[in-house]
């Protein structure tokens, strides 16, 4: 896809990087002048996808693996690709069901994909066992009154 502006981040799949990754994507999205709530939605959806990479795709392999995060802007839409090269998901539609988890059912909500779906406008998950998973998310950022005012002045 052709973007008017884009960034790529390749980073170690370590849980201590989760905060940095979601904050980086949120900072880039500020170019579209999102609301506080939209920034919260973006950070949360990104965090869900990154957590899946660390907890599931690269389970028990702390550190040697990489996650690639691409963020692109086209018109007023933020497009986020989160790619890992880990274990992959056998059954994507099962994994995407609310409350499904392959982890500890006492401590894991199984809501990751459901949250991504609800907070973003589009979610597409493709996965190949032992090759990795690609999560594509899109969010349309609403035009605010401020943007319109600035446009009128210019």
């Amino acid at each position, binding site marked *: 896809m052709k973007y008017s502006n884009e960034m790529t981040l390749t980073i170690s799949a370590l*849980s201590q990087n989760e*905060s940095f990754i979601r904050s980086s994507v949120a900072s880039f999205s500020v170019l579209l002048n999102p609301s506080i709530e939209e920034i*919260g939605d973006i950070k*949360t959806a990104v965090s869900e996808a990154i*957590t899946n990479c*660390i907890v599931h795709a690269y389970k028990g392999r702390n550190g040697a693996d990489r996650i690639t995060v691409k963020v692109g802007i086209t018109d007023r839409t933020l497009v986020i690709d989160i790619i890992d090269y880990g274990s992959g998901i056998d059954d994507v539609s099962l994994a995407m069901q609310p409350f499904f988890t392959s982890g500890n059912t006492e401590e*894991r909500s199984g*809501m990751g994909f459901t949250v991504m779906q*609800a*907070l973003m406008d589009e979610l597409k998950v493709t996965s190949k066992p032992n090759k990795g998973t690609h999560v594509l998310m899109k969010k349309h950022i609403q035009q605010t009154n401020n943007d319109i005012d600035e446009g009128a002045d210019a």
Partner: protein
Amino acid sequence: MEVISKQESDKTIIYLMGELDNHNADYARTKIDDIMAQSLKRIVVFDLKLLSFMDSTGIGVLIGRYKKAKGKQQLFVKNPSRTVDKIFLMSGLYDIMPKV
């Protein structure tokens, strides 16, 4: 993140502060379990006023505490952000841990 608690006459208030995600979920679990084990109050309120971020890992942490309490303590949540409120609603968390 940080977890601190305050005892009131009829309830324990647990303040979750900072960011609750996969990275610090174990820390949050341990701290909350310690506070809940020491508290004799029937009512426990999680106050999220000072929580700047939480994702579904945080829901897992809260559901885990509910299961561990086994009905001996009643749990509530207070002051979620707008995004956290949305994910609590869609996960059904408020059915077991009402918002006050």
